[in-house]
């Protein structure tokens, strides 16, 4: 019986960790959707590029002989800088010219961008799985609990929590955050009161991409390998989480991610690990069919 409870706890924490990482990616989807109503299909690729950049940076710094903590921080900074730059650039090329196009045009453009970026990394780097260095050390003080929750899990949960608090602060209290909320509510009105909407959209992409980069770094060092295709699955799952929580809602994205992470963890632990991705996809299909507005989202009525 005790064994069973340990197993349950193990699944619980691994689900929570998954959820935390999904949340970092899901926030990017939900923020972009909230502002311009677009499913940024290429967002998973931003996360993948973040993981690759972190991998490259971490390897270089470790060859140069930097201490472990410095490597993590520097790799994280590089991942954030480049992912944010990619996010910014993608918006300018593939979405901005389509601001007034029919709804499906930017979505198709986003799919194209996603395919392009995958193959760009495939061609410029490799199609093989790359072993990602275990950047997060095992802490001594965690030793007694190691059979339930690993050090990486603790670091991921702690990092995610801190980032969520910072993000909430930015959105609630800073000028950019207020402008974002205004733009999300009514873009025309926001323009009229003097908000530079283009700049706010760019800021949204930059923030969302930065979060995805952190997610890329964390998950890569957690799982221990990356390849050019990781963005696709992670992207769909994070999108599922965002929809589950109610797309456009920031607490919703976090809630949805945690629920999805736990569901996946328990389903693979108790049912079957063969169908890991099927659970997520099925959940996505079911939510969209039965409650497309999600748990915390508002139903949207089309205006006549």
């Amino acid at each position, binding site marked *: 019986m005790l064994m069973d409870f340990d197993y349950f706890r193990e699944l619980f924490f691994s689900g929570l960790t998954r959820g935390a990482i999904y949340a970092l990616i899901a926030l990017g989807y939900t923020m972009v959707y909230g502002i311009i109503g*677009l*499913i940024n299909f290429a967002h998973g690729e931003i996360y993948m*590029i973040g993981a*690759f*950049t972190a*991998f*490259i*940076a*971490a*390897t*270089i710094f*470790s*060859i140069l002989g930097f201490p472990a903590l410095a490597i993590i921080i520097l790799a994280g900074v590089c991942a954030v800088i*480049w992912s944010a*730059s*990619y996010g910014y*650039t993608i918006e300018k*090329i*593939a979405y901005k010219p*389509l601001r007034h*196009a*029919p*709804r*499906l*045009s*930017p*979505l*198709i*453009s986003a*799919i*194209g*961008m*996603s*395919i*392009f*970026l*995958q*193959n*760009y990394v495939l*061609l*410029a780097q*490799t199609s093989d799985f790359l*072993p*990602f*260095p275990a950047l997060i050390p095992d802490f001594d003080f965690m030793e007694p609990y190691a059979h339930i929750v690993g050090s990486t899990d603790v670091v991921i949960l702690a990092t995610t929590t801190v980032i969520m608090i910072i993000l909430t602060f930015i959105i609630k209290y800073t000028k950019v955050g207020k402008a974002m909320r205004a733009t999300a509510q009514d873009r025309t009105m926001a323009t009229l009161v003097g908000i530079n909407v283009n700049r706010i959209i760019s800021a949204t992409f930059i923030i969302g991409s930065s979060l995805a980069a952190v997610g890329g770094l964390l998950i890569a060092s957690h799982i221990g390998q990356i390849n050019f295709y990781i963005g*696709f699955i992670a992207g*769909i799952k994070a999108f599922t989480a965002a*929809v589950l929580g109610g797309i456009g809602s920031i607490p919703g994205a976090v809630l949805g991610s945690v629920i999805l992470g736990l569901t996946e963890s328990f389903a693979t632990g108790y049912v079957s690990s*063969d*169908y890991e*991705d*099927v659970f997520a*996809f*099925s959940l*996505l*299909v079911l939510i*969209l*069919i039965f409650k*497309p507005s999600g748990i915390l989202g508002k139903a949207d009525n*089309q205006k006549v």
Partner: protein
Amino acid sequence: MLTELRKSLIASIWFAFLTFPIMVIKVNSIEKTIQWRWMNVVYVMVGIFFLSMAFRFLLKQKEMRAGKEESGTEIKLSPIHQLINHPTYRVVFGAALLLFAVVYPFVFSTYQINIMTTALMYVVLGLGLNIVVGLAGLLDLGYVAFYAVGAYSYALLNHHFGLGFWAVLPIGGVLAAIFGILLGIPVLRLRGDYLAIVTLGFGEIIRLVLENWGEFSKGPSGISNIPRPGLFGIELSLNDAITYTYYLMVIFVVVTIFFVNRLQDSRLGRAWIALREDEIACQAMGIDKMKTKLIAFSLGAFWAGIIGVMFAAKTTFINPASFTFLESAMILSIVVLGGMGSIVGVILGALILILLPEYLRELSEYRMLAFGAALVAMMVFRPQGLISNVRRTYSINKDE
């Protein structure tokens, strides 16, 4: 002019920075080696310098075109449109194409016949998806699932019950259409972008189930020894069988064009286009939204199912790896590149996207990269595709 150069220069510097880690550095974390590929910086900078000029130039052109349209200036039909709309030229052109298709196997090698057969399969897939995406405006990202249903119906029905190609052909189509209806009933209520994601999820579920449910589908190793299409029980040599499959595909293409063309100009086809344009107005005209969408969705699935059967028979081996999301994306690219809603456009799109990479072998690894770029570029610069769909005009004889 000078500001243009400066803008391009800034863009190329920005991209040099942007692509720096991915393009320039290549590390090996086990052997602890770093490889610096500095030449790539030069390629990127030169390439982006010109691309950014082209980008801004094309964007400006598009704006000018939009301005013209708004002022109501008549836009001239392109030469291709004049060709396909002119009654005599149209017949001559079609006959010439058909003659070429008939003579093709006598002129080209088996290898090339095979490639052309594949291209023709994509023509039909493109035309099928065109009903769903181009006419009815339903973005289906899981189209390949229906294709898989067709392919696996033939493989499994043949394996277990020994059913032949011709017997399964309609069954495969109908099964795919039934899948389309079953999926369509719950999901077609959804808004366009959600529909896209749900169909994508559905496509992946089908593939994952095929991969993991070994007892049913033989898992990732797939099913082999699927018989080629039969010809009244005549035993055909491999070469003859390939040629025969090619001619079958030509017939399929002709039949599909014929039917899709008729659908497009029918009461149903008009309803699809109206639905694509404005759902609310469409309902206000008394059109049942769900029913109309469902018909488009299941008809598209039907065609995918038929070609799925054909695919299994042509390659004699199938496994789940043939039915990934990228396959759906490729078919979508064909429709988008060719021109949503335009039959000639879709045919051209399929031939370009399938044949070009085959004949430019050195470039074939860049194929998916180019697809992705093409999707973005088409949406940004030419959303109507290479050949836009021109609505039929009617002449009314007032004396009647």
